[in-house]
């Protein structure tokens, strides 16, 4: 029997790895992957609590998270492709026009 806290610790650790990944990487695709890690970390928490409380809502929510992740990735990657078309790079440091 794995205690709940173990799952939560795993979730927190993965989430922080995702955060650091978003912050330190410049490759847009890797940043996206880090976001996926964060989403998955949340899923772990949701399911762990679900089991702990004997409900199904959390699983439904993780299902929704997956939906959103799929949508986000498809749109996000499309955006990266169109950015790449403008400027042949995926280095986020090259894209600093958001201040306008």
């Amino acid at each position: 029997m794995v205690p709940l806290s173990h799952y939560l610790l795993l979730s927190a650790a993965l989430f922080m790895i995702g955060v650091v990944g978003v912050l330190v990487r410049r490759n847009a695709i890797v940043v996206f992957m880090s976001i996926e890690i964060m989403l998955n970390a949340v899923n772990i928490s949701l399911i762990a609590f679900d089991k702990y409380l004997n409900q199904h809502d959390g699983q439904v929510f993780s299902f929704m998270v997956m939906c959103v992740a799929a949508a986000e990735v498809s749109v996000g990657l499309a955006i990266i492709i169109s950015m790449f078309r403008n400027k042949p790079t995926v280095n986020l440091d090259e894209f600093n026009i958001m201040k306008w």
Partner: protein
Amino acid sequence: MELLTFYPLAGFSILLALGVVINKSPIGSALCLIGMMLGLAGIFAMQQAHFIAILQVVIYAGAIMVLFMFVIMLLNLKGTGAEWRSRERNTLLTVLTAFLALGVLYKIVDIILEIDLDSPAKVADTFGTAAVIGETLFTDFVLPFEVASILLLAAMVGAVVLAKTKLD
């Protein structure tokens, strides 16, 4: 007994997640990510969330990661030496955030370990089967479910519009 499966799986997932962040080439990162997804699927399965575990494999490891690979190959991205060069202006801020993040992680771990949890509820055998989740999904959460389908449709259309060479 379960701990013996949990620790290797958890350690495996964390290592691969770190691999995603550290790896120099995007392809390597993507492969690490796939591994991590599979590890997490195992963890889900350990909690009797079989349906979600299967979805994790199918959607993430299957669909989403394939999309990532596709894009990486389409753009022909290779690892560059400049990946880890410190940034010109934000070094201080990044270091500060890294410290803060680590501090927060420490704090969270601290809190989690301190919490006095009750003993978990008794779980029925049917927990986490597709039938039960499907029932919840189509009764209590039918509206969010439909909305999610609209979201996916919108994302699909959006992706097509964005990725088209020319708008005309």
